């Protein structure tokens, strides 16, 4: 009741004024009726009523919620105080905005990557169907970002399950939009007919697929495009519906557009175009739909009403034996088959979608959130120090307030209003900053090959997080100073002079404690930053076994060129020769796999008739590969023109290979076989060369045994794709246009995509770079904030102790003594902080250990380096006030009293 009146108290006041007026009018009428003159009648009426203003005030106060009214007054008072001291306000708001902004940005990312559910109908009913963990290894080919099931498995699950009201299967892929020249890709989805209906995604325009769109052998299926693609490519034009879209050289009519918020089920990625799975044979050179050992599908199910995750898992487990028996790949060897027949399907929660980004970045993001939280705490400690100083300056004012009857709680509330105002403005600034920062982070994570897409819109969680931060910071830096300021007995505070000769030890104790905390926390952050920066450096300078600078990769897609399979080898050789002949090109060679690009091919080998346990990584490379990549040939020979499809199979192996399989002896002349599936020929490979070790999957790994086969002996390449690495000193744009011209001259339908080796390596170190950059940034910020804090406290201490210093100097202390005294005090604070921080850093390092490379979390040299760096800045920060103290004129300092 009162709350409602509170907000209408102005209206109520007017209402009561009208009522009082009506009283006066009636009374006047009656007085006139009694025979008074009108003027007199009105005056008498007024007298009878009494003091109108007093009555209205009385009623007004009844409508006022005292707390809110006072709060409003406090906020206005605080705003006035801040305006009077703009330097303080700016520093406070800026440091809070930085702290809150960094926290909010990281939280926004975490929210988008980890916490938020998919923007589909009742996402919590969705589960992912895949093999029960631990899977223990599968055999076959793996494609796409979620290679969980094969198509035959999908069919079996679809036909046998009763747990789900619908199934949504998908494969992430790319569709080429061009028909020749440099490639342009659309992010593609191949989905089953029930995909959209199972997720509950309604079309924004046109229609989405239904079961009738996905019929095996479909000849001319339609395409569903995303809202973003529709805007980008068609300007959001409604007439795009029905228009043909060229993908991989074929045309598909656009049938519908998905809503703006829908990005698929893979968090961190979006899609441009979706085709039904039955279109797979139309866009891929070799269809994988009937292959029981090609894993390329992810599968979601929507639980039937009343079904739980556990019940669905039990049901899937029960139908698994029949499913795996029906889909056993005939090519599997006995060992693989036995393993396959034990596979069980299970359901896993999927309301938040699936995400590679989540797998790779969830723990780094939590770590970064902890980092930013520490930065915010350091910033709060600085503000607390400033607030303490202000409270001391206002000691007498507060004493007067208390003395004339203000309650302590009331004064604390007034002081807190100032903190709250600061933290609210700071948080608002932080939200603005967070918007840019999170965009920057997403940009950081986006590489040429993978466009990161995250919905970063502010939802209630982000809002609640930021609001909680604002309140927490306000309490953190405002509450203690406010309580302290009102603790002194008014009498004592009034009596003490404008500046005491010393300050109470207790109050200084708190400020010292804050500095110790700041130094400790910033040491933790600086150690962390150095660990990440040095890890990255270790990775960048390590000997990868191949050259990065000046190496360019050209990916050729020739399937528009319609080259007969049996001619592919000759065409490939010819294209490599053309590239090699270009004037700007120093060396060029074909390669099946580019190191550290994320692609891989591994298998077991048979040596002397014995199957070896260790996996071997393979690659197939052309003549001149080692020269192009700068990998040293240690013994034997490189591949050359002698190695043809007709000649005996040859291989070149790495040092690790020789060590693992031949005990480090010279492997040249030795042989091995690859353990191929049943019915596949197993040629004997004759080792003709030994090369230095090189990284294969990523830079972090130990060197693995690698066997390099001769691409020139592969008579009939499986796919019309050719990858060429080339080395050149010419500028990038010159060389790409030369190569494009040479290749399209040979075959106009060639589609080419370029990437530098530097970019491949850079992308493979994305997580390390992110951690090094951000932790470096935050470490620096923490160091700066702690330095400012130390400087502030030391300056303040010198200021408050002018008298004492003056006396000391008058009694014969020289300047060196004064500097020494102040520096010793500062040194004690810093040392205490370093001890606490050092211990904390070693303890906290464990959380980061998996992200480090080439050093341990407690690395002593890193710790020493951080301590030295912090000590150096701390020294400068405290030398300035110490020097200033030593310049004091004793007589002046004493006279000031």
């Amino acid at each position, binding site marked *: *009741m*009162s*709350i409602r*009146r509170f907000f209408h108290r102005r209206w109520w006041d007017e209402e*009561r004024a*009208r*009522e*009082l007026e*009506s*009283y006066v*009018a*009636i*009374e006047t*009428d*009656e007085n006139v009726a009694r025979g008074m003159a009108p003027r007199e009648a009105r005056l008498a009426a007024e007298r*009878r*009523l*009494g*003091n*109108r203003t*007093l*009555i209205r005030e*009385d*009623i007004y*106060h*009844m*409508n*006022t*919620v*005292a707390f809110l009214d006072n709060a409003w007054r406090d906020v206005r008072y605080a705003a006035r105080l801040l305006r009077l001291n703009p330097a303080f306000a700016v520093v406070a708001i800026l440091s809070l905005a930085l702290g809150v902004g960094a926290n909010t940005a990281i939280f926004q990312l975490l929210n988008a990557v980890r916490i938020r559910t998919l923007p589909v109908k009742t996402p919590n009913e969705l589960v992912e169907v895949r093999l029960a963990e631990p899977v223990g290894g599968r055999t076959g080919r793996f494609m796409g970002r979620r290679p969980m099931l094969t198509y035959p498995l999908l069919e079996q699950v679809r036909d046998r399950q009763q747990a789900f009201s619908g199934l949504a299967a998908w494969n992430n892929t790319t569709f080429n939009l061009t028909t020749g020249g440099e490639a342009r890709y659309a992010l593609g989805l191949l989905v089953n007919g029930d995909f959209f209906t199972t997720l509950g995604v309604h079309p924004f325009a046109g229609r989405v697929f239904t079961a009738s769109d996905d019929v095996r052998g479909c000849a001319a299926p339609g395409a569903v495009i995303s809202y973003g693609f529709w805007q980008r490519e068609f300007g959001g034009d409604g007439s795009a519906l029905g228009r043909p879209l060229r993908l991989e050289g074929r045309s598909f009519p656009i049938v519908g557009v998905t809503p703006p918020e829908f990005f698929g089920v893979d968090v961190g990625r979006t899609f441009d175009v979706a085709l039904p799975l039955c279109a797979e044979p139309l866009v891929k050179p070799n269809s994988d739909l009937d292959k029981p050992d090609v894993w390329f599908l992810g599968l979601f199910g929507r639980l039937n009403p009343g079904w739980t995750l556990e019940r669905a898992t039990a049901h899937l487990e029960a139908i698994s034996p029949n499913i795996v028996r029906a889909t056993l790949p005939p090519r599997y060897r006995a060992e693989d088959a036995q393993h396959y027949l034990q596979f069980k399907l299970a359901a896993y929660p999927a309301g938040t979608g699936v995400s590679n980004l989540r797998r790779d970045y969830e723990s780094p993001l939590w770590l970064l959130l902890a980092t930013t939280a520490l930065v915010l705490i350091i910033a709060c400690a600085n503000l607390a120090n400033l607030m303490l100083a202000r409270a001391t300056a206002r000691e007498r004012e507060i004493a007067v307030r208390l003395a004339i009857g203000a309650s302590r709680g009331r004064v604390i509330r007034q002081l807190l209003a100032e903190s709250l105002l600061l933290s609210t403005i700071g948080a608002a600034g932080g939200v603005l900053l967070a918007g840019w920062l999170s965009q920057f982070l997403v940009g950081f994570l986006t590489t040429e090959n993978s466009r990161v897409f995250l919905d970063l819109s502010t939802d209630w969680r982000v809002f609640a997080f930021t609001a909680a931060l604002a309140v927490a910071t306000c309490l953190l830096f405002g509450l203690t100073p406010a309580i302290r300021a009102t603790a002194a007995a008014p009498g004592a505070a009034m009596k003490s002079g404008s500046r005491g000769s010393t300050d109470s030890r207790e109050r200084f104790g708190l400020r010292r404690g804050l500095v110790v905390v700041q130094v400790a926390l910033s040491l933790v952050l600086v150690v962390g930053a150095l660990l990440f920066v040095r890890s990255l450096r270790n990775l960048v300078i390590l000997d990868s076994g191949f050259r990065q600078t000046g190496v360019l990769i050209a990916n050729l897609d020739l399937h528009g060129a319609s080259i007969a399979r049996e001619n592919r080898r000759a065409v490939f050789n010819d294209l490599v020769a053309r590239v090699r002949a270009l004037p700007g090109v120093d060396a060029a060679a074909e390669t099946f796999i580019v190191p550290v690009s994320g692609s891989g091919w591994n298998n077991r080998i048979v040596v002397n008739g014995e199957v070896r346990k260790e996996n071997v990584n393979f690659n197939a490379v052309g003549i001149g590969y080692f020269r192009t990549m700068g990998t040293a040939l240690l013994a034997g020979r490189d591949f050359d023109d002698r190695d043809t499809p007709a000649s005996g199979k040859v291989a070149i192996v790495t040092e690790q290979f020789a060590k693992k399989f031949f005990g480090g002896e010279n492997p040249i002349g030795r042989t091995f076989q690859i353990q191929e599936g049943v019915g596949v020929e197993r040629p004997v490979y004759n080792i003709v060369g030994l090369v230095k070790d090189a990284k294969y999957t990523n830079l972090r790994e130990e060197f693995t045994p690698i066997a390099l086969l001769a691409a020139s002996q592969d008579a009939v390449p499986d796919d019309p794709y050719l990858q060429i690495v080339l080395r050149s000193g010419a500028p990038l744009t010159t060389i790409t246009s030369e190569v494009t011209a040479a290749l399209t001259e040979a075959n106009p339908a060639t589609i080419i995509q370029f990437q530098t080796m530097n970019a491949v390596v850079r992308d493979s170190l994305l997580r390390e770079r992110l951690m090094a950059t951000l932790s470096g940034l935050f470490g620096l910020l923490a160091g700066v904030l702690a330095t400012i804090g130390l400087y502030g406290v030391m300056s303040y201490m010198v200021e408050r102790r002018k008298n004492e210093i003056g006396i000391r100097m008058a009694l014969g202390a020289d300047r060196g003594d004064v500097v020494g005294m102040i520096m010793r005090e500062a040194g004690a604070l810093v040392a205490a902080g370093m001890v606490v921080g050092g211990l904390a850093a070693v303890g906290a390092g464990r959380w980061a250990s998996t992200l480090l490379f080439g050093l341990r979390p407690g690395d002593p040299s890193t710790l020493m380096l951080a301590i030295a760096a912090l000590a150096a800045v701390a020294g400068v920060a405290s030398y300035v006030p110490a020097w200033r103290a030593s310049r004091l004129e004793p007589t002046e300092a004493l006279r000031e009293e």
Partner: protein
Amino acid sequence: MAKRKSSPNQGEMLQGTLDLLILRTLALGPAHGHTVAYAIERQSEDVLQVEHGSLYPALHRLEDRGWIASFWGTSENNRRARYYRLTRAGRQQLTEQTNRWEAMVRAINRILKPA
């Protein structure tokens, strides 16, 4: 909420009795502030002199508590006036307060005039 100590001059009346008198007056039918003031004076045969202004904060308080409700109407001599009427809760309150008052008067009388 917000019970700020206010000082409406309530003449010689006991604290709280004004509320009771207003409720009693309104039990006879809806009335505006002017009528209520005169009614109290008249029925007490001018013993209780209410300062008319002090009536309005009291009316506001009673309305706030939901014991009376108000509406704008037209007075006998054709003036706009805010009328008050007793609510169901107000009627209940009137009975309770009357009983309490009577009990108190009996108690005080027993002390003043011991039989």
